[in-house]
């Protein structure tokens, strides 16, 4: 890979792709050449189900700043969720 910045993580959930909802089992996180965003490199998130083939994927391409904001928003929401659940 051009940047060599790429990781894969197990994940369980549901995502909506071009053929409707499907179970997701992997999350790919990378910083590399995007397919569509007009920058040289972007933070790439792929929610995937490898068993269903490469097309079972929901892809997101973000700038570093936007990805940072996204991570913060997720953590804030998770903190609220934990309080709501009494954890």
């Amino acid at each position, binding site marked *: 890979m051009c940047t*060599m910045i790429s990781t*894969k993580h197990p994940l369980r959930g549901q995502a909506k792709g071009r053929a409707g909802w499907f179970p997701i089992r992997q999350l790919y996180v990378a910083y590399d*050449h995007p397919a569509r965003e*007009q920058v040289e490199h972007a933070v790439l998130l792929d929610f*995937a189900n*490898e068993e269903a*083939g*490469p097309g079972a994927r929901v892809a997101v391409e973000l700038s570093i700043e936007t990805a940072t904001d996204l991570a913060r928003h997720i953590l804030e929401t998770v903190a609220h969720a934990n309080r709501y659940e009494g954890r």
Partner: protein
Amino acid sequence: MTDSHWSYTQSQGVAEELVSLGAEHITIRPHCPWRNGKVERSNRTLHIEWAYRQVFTSHQQRSDVLPARLDYYNDQRRHSSLGGRPPDQPTVTNLMAEYNQQAVRTAGAEEGEAEMFQTDSYEGLLAETVVVTGAGGDLIHAYHARPLGPGPFPGVVLFHHRPGWDAWYRATTRLFAAHGYGAISPDLYCRFGHGEPDDVAAKARAEGGAVDDQVVGDAEGCMRHLRAHPSSNGKIGLFGTCSGGRHAYLTACRLDGIAAVVDCWGGNIVVGDDALTAAQPVAPADLSEDLDAPVLGLFGDEDRNPTRADVDALEEILRRLGKPYEFHRYPEAGHGFFYHDRPSAYRAEAAVDGWSKVWSFLARHLS
């Protein structure tokens, strides 16, 4: 029919021969060699297969082998335009079509032009997905585009970039065919599955990318495929952009029989040990001693991989080893400045100049 050179128009011998044959002497319009395409094409074959085929120490030595060479050409050499027969076993062929194609190529070759098309000439190419035996005997897909006609055509293997075996690479493969090359682009991500190119590329990225050994083996399979075609002239060049530039350089170091390599902004050719991975376990620059092919390198100064320092380091290695190379650097370009489908990367001026460098370089080394 000849051109208007004085050796024809002023020669007493030619004049006497014409009289003895009862023939009329027609000369073509000056600077229009395609009007005499058969002869020009024949001259080209003689150059390739006789006059410059080996080192002769004298004109006499070169002349002495000509009769045997002509006998071989007429009696034994298999001609793709004659269905694999030598000329003394003629078969029906479309002479006019052959004439036109040969004339076009001859005109382009003589003028050293990348653009060989003449408005009154036939041009055609065939492009299709093929199956090639790649590394480890695996059957992989490749996109093969070639000019129509008997050739001989040089070959080029194209190594796709990090975003995958995509539309730009198929279009670029056809572009090489339109410029007179038998071109083939293997799907280097074939083993990661099939789907839309960006989906397959995402899978490949998550798995650490194509394995170097497989890429080299796949390229070798593509080279066999090109050379096996009757229209091949036997010469093969390599072309790649981004990670494909690295793969092209790596393959040129690892395999014999490559006549030229074009590295367009290949990243990680010069790279430290900390960036090596299981799939890409070597820095190709470290293999440069084994490089036999001349290198054309095109780089944007604003690129971050390779950086200007990376390009400097690679150039220094090639210079120190005495390897033939030419590097061209574009000050206001970054990574991927040929990619017309990526407005943020495309740099029209650099791309036009870069492509002209590619055609000129390949014409010099693969003809």
